[in-house]
């Protein structure tokens, strides 16, 4: 239906006022980020897949602009332009429209997000527990009950990979592909059997750099083949990747026990308090021990907030679709007519502010509520 009647508008406004009151009472500054954003920031960060879902248009000078597809990046940009010190602690809340092309699920193309973003937090697990508490309290203030909470933790996955014996370039590739379960699987298979790789169109180039200075060998080969050098990719970048491919040929395969361990980790799920025992079975390393302590401290912090983490669900696989998170990820669902509906989500994203121009890495944690979905469940 096109548009909202006055009664519908008022009902949504009343619900959202209750949500925002929870955030404001907790000391979060209620800001209004811009609706129109430079498209580059979204497109360069997330790539083409978000462009397919974002309303992009041009200004009269040909600059690409967009309607914000979510409010996290706009809130970050607000912070970077208003805060005297981008790394100083700041807590914001917002209520505003986000715009996305409808997907197959026939979601609306404009919807209202209510959320909080906490930048430069000093006590990470306390901030995370507080954000989860506020998300739950806001949903309850709106009238929801029977919330189902799912958590994941990318810090654990990264620490597990860091603890394993393998070349650094393999670690980097596994972390990069964590988001794409299929590609991750084929990468694991490749590392487990590096010597059985088929020859490809470029295998002869890999042959050619063996025993040579890679950069000089690549330059000589380009000249010999009469391949002009185009694009900004330098000879050094091309040579570096060929060297990695050469090194992969003689690399010892990834220990099958390590492959099993990664699989075992990704299969971990259950009550947040129960999985502590499963995590304890993972091997010991400084990074992994740290990540485990972090996980347990978060449970304690959730209890301090008056929550019952025993009822929260942990899944090591969760978060594999949400690219910019760096640690905790969570979502909140409620049982709707016949299937659970995700009404809120959030997590930690410590890289984003720096990517957007902050002078150094700034810790950040936040969440957003899909207010129309809340309304749909309630009515």
């Amino acid at each position: 239906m096109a548009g909202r009647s006055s009664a519908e508008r008022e009902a949504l406004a009343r619900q959202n006022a209750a949500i925002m009151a929870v955030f404001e009472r907790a000391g979060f500054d209620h800001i209004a980020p811009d609706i129109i954003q430079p498209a580059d920031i979204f497109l360069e960060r997330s790539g083409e897949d978000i462009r397919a879902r974002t309303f992009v248009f041009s200004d009269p000078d040909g600059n690409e602009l967009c309607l914000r597809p979510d409010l996290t990046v706009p809130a970050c940009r607000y912070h970077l332009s208003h805060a005297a010190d981008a790394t100083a602690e700041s807590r914001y809340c917002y209520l505003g429209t986000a715009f996305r092309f409808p997907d197959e699920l026939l979601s609306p193309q404009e919807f209202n997000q209510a959320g909080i973003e906490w930048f430069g937090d000093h006590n990470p697990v306390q901030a995370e527990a507080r954000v989860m508490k506020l998300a739950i309290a806001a949903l309850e203030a709106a009238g929801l009950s029977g919330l189902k909470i799912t958590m994941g933790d990318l810090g654990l996955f990264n620490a597990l990979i860091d603890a394993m014996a393998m070349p650094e370039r393999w670690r980097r590739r596994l972390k990069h592909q964590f988001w794409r379960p299929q590609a991750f699987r084929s990468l694991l298979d490749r590392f487990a059997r590096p010597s059985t790789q088929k020859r490809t169109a470029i295998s002869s180039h890999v042959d050619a750099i063996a025993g040579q200075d890679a950069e000089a060998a690549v330059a000589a080969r380009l000249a010999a083949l009469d391949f002009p050098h185009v694009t900004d990719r330098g000879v050094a970048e091309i040579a570096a990747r060929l060297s990695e491919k050469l090194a992969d040929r003689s690399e010892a395969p990834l220990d099958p026990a390590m492959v099993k361990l990664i699989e075992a980790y990704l299969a971990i799920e259950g009550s947040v308090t129960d999985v502590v025992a499963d995590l304890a079975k993972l091997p010991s390393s400084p990074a992994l021990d740290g990540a485990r302590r972090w996980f347990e401290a978060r449970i304690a912090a959730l209890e301090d907030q008056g929550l019952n983490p025993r009822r929260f669900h942990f899944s090591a696989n969760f978060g594999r679709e949400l690219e910019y998170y760096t640690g905790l990820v969570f979502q909140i669902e409620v049982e709707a007519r016949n299937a659970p509906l995700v009404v809120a989500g959030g997590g930690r994203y410590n890289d984003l502010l720096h990517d957007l121009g902050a002078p150094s890495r700034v810790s950040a944690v936040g969440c957003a509520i899909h207010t129309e979905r809340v309304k749909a469940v309630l009515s």
Partner: protein
Amino acid sequence: MTVTPLTLGIPSKGRLMEASAELYAKAGLPIERIGNDRGYRGRLTGVDGIDVAFLSASEIAGQLRDGKIHLGVTGEDLLREKIPPTDESIDVAVRLGFGPANVVVAVPECWLDVAAMADLDEVAEQFYRAHGRRIRVATKYIHLTRRWFAAHGVTGYRIVDSSGATEGAPAAGLADIIVDITTTGSTLAANHLRILDDGVILQSCAVLALKRELLPDLRVQVMLKALAKAL
């Protein structure tokens, strides 16, 4: 009783137009132009109630999708680009075989380290870290590119809309790689571009596409039988 005539879109010029005209003539349903030779309307002879609209090949898929024509001869590449795979209302009734060409992903020959889509994903990520921008893909096949790259887990790229001379974009500094249509690959080679090992997105040829609901229509049945015999 009068029956609403169906409209068949036929490419208005070039090889696709000539091959379509030959095929329909061979099938015993020659296309007859109405008015002068330069007119854009016509009809099929040999079967009643099928009008012909001469359109540019790139318009035919869109007009079919929007319901402005009922059937159309066009390249499969254009059809797949304009009509999402989720749209089941339109069906390829016959692959006509002429106009064969592949839609491919091609990279500069100087990228000695890139054999496959998986390499492209790594390069995209490293390029972003080294240069602070995404690799750019010049193409007119925006949707085909997005779907293919997404299916291969490649996300860190930007599309540069390119409607002509796409193969020149990397040398001109307008893009890093391309997605384009090629018949023999000689234009790509002349521009120092190489098709990735798993870079064939689509093996295209001319197709007759139609609204699926029209399949039982008697006129359509007559036409399909005649085309099948002629092929």
